[in-house]
């Protein structure tokens, strides 16, 4: 009550900058039910105050006024915390789309709320349609390249992958000389590693 659970929710966001935690359904629903409680309290107090005054006016001198004010402020505070929680998670998901490409890894997907999954899907679609219209892949070359080609070492067995015009078989610990733009997404996903020799 009075914004304490909401504060816990927001505190979760500060714990780990790089990792997304599981959506906290329990705490989120708890804050929403607290908002409803506060709202109930406000309406009862308002009715009481209107009932006591004959012409139905509410004066700020009334002793219950401050109580109603506190409940009202708590509702606003809870709302702010909930919105901030969703907003920051959505931001992290956007960043992930740029880093990892169109497909999210399974273990990240299971941490998301269904509405977040919707968000990721629509954002991804919007971004892809924009990039195809421009005919450029914007997620590539985030750091300015020194060289169009790069040497990479394969970390896991991926099998046959279409790199450029040829399909290459990526066996663990093999070293390839590939175009930087294609290697970039794979490195970001953790499948390859830059070979600095």
């Amino acid at each position, binding site marked *: 009550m*009075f*914004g304490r659970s909401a*504060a816990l929710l*927001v*505190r979760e*966001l*500060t714990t780990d*900058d*790089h*990792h*997304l935690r599981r959506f906290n359904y329990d705490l989120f629903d708890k804050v929403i039910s607290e908002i409803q409680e506060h709202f109930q309290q406000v309406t009862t107090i308002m009715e009481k105050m209107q009932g006591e005054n004959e012409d139905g006016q509410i004066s*700020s001198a009334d002793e219950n006024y*401050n109580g109603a*004010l*506190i409940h009202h*402020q*708590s509702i606003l*505070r809870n709302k*702010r*915390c909930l*919105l*901030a929680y969703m*907003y*920051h998670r959505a931001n992290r998901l956007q960043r*992930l789309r740029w*880093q*990892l490409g169109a497909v999210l*890894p399974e273990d*990240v997907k299971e941490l998301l709320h269904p509405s977040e999954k919707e968000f990721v899907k629509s954002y991804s679609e919007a971004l892809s349609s924009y990039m195809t219209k421009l005919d450029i892949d914007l997620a590539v070359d*985030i*750091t300015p390249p020194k060289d169009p080609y*790069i040497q990479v070492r394969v970390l896991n067995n991926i099998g046959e992958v279409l790199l450029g015009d040829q399909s290459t078989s990526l066996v663990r610990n093999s070293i390839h000389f590939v175009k930087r733009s294609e*290697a*970039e997404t794979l*490195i*970001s*996903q*953790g499948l390859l*590693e*830059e070979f*600095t020799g």
Partner: protein
Amino acid sequence: MANYYDIQDILMQDEVARGSVVDLPLWLAQDLVQRQILHIKLPSCFNARVRKEVQADPACVDLHSKCPFYYEMGCKLVELSVDPTLGPFLLTTLQGRYKDLLCKALTATLSGNLKFLPHLTEEETRLFEAGRDSVKAFKKWRLQGPRIEKAAILGRKRNRDATPIWS
């Protein structure tokens, strides 16, 4: 509008303004003061004793235990309360600590200099970490380390030191 979603702002306002007859979190007190229902008495972390401590040696004072959001809370209180000396006091405190903070941030090794870190407020810790990260990035650039790397979110199971491409 930018402040509405700002996490640091939200958490800072949760700190209780102790010293008033009733202890209230700042978000509640702020509104009530604007409606002139109550007055804020400055919390104990800004009182005369602390100010003397800071005047003596700003760099050594443990501000984190007094209030982790010392500066931000002070700034909000400057608007709400009647004390005109609070603003300049905050400025001089930060000035005193900043130079020391910056030097340590840019020269810190992994192990040393950890004693004074818990004394820093949230804002100062962020400055410190920004300094440390920029030194790390510079060293990496100097040694021409790998420029594309695995995204940090995937690093849970193994390499916790993987830095993101950008954060």
